[in-house]
């Protein structure tokens, strides 16, 4: 079972021979494994902590901050799996765009600190939530643990070159690529149409008797 490594390239530079000797010294495999497991533990901590804050916080802005922490944890996990492109896209799209969108929604619907979320959910609701979470874990957890060992590959994951991803998007998966641009266009148009407020609506109401 191999350890999982960080996916950043080492600088390939022309260096004098002293540095070459230094470059040849690699950390032992045990060091790699310890670092990888420590990083994984940190990211799981970020995910669980942020997730609990996002699910249970009493103020919506605190829930949003918890969501941001969760996204950071997931981006770290993508880095551990040698997908730096995906990690940066996660940061760019989720934190840079979706979280900002949710913040504007919070501001627009004026859910202040004395809003609905301050009341704790009733006992029935809380019990149902806990039961469903535990149920999901109990059903899928053992399936994963028992079957995953047989499915793993032996080598470490390597970074796919960006050119390969681009080729995939433009050669074989060009249909989903075009469709997703259509979906985004429709979402933008639909959002603008739904939220559009007629400019002179206030004036009409004033002139009506």
């Amino acid at each position, binding site marked *: *079972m191999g350890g999982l490594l960080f996916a950043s390239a080492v600088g390939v530079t022309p260096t004098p021979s002293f540095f070459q000797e230094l470059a040849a010294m690699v950390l032992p495999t045990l060091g790699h494994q310890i670092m990888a497991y420590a990083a994984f533990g940190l990211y799981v901590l970020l*995910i*669980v902590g942020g*997730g609990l804050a*996002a*699910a*249970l916080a009493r103020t*919506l802005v605190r829930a949003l901050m918890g*969501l941001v922490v*969760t996204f950071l944890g*997931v981006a770290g*996990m*993508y880095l551990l*799996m040698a*997908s730096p492109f*995906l990690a940066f*896209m*996660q940061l760019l*799209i*989720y934190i840079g765009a*979706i979280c900002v*969108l*949710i913040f*504007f*929604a919070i501001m*627009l*619907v004026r*859910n202040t600190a004395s*809003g*609905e*979320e301050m*009341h704790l*959910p009733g006992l029935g*609701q809380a019990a149902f*939530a*806990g039961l*469903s*979470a535990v149920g*999901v874990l109990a059903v*899928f*957890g053992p399936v*994963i*643990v028992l079957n*995953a*060992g047989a499915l793993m*590959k*032996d080598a470490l*994951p*390597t970074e*796919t070159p960006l050119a390969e991803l681009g080729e*995939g998007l433009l050669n074989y998966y060009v249909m*989903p690529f075009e469709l*997703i641009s259509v*979906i*985004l266009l429709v979402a*933008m148009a*639909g*959002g603008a149409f*739904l*939220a559009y407020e007629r400019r002179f609506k206030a004036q009409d109401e004033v002139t009506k008797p």
Partner: protein
Amino acid sequence: MTSPLALFMLAALLLLAIGLVGLISRRTLVGMLISVEMLLNGAGLSIVAAAKLTPGGLDGLGQLAAIFVMGLAAAEAALVLAMMVVVYRRFDTVATEALTTLKDAES
């Protein structure tokens, strides 16, 4: 010791479970949207883990699928938030208990 694939899939499962807890116990639409984003993240993480850590050369496909999921999540969040603005204008609140006009007035 469990294999790394199991560890990553369990982390994705945790995301799913916590997202479910949030979705069920939240009382406003915005809170529910936050939980739904967490669910989508869990799905993306499990897709990439399944693609990258199994043999078969599907690395690129897994990453592309995760990117599509991200794009769809963004489009969905934008639409849901626009709907929320409309709901707020109509009902003057986004608490889900207030949105009951489709309920039969049976009593």
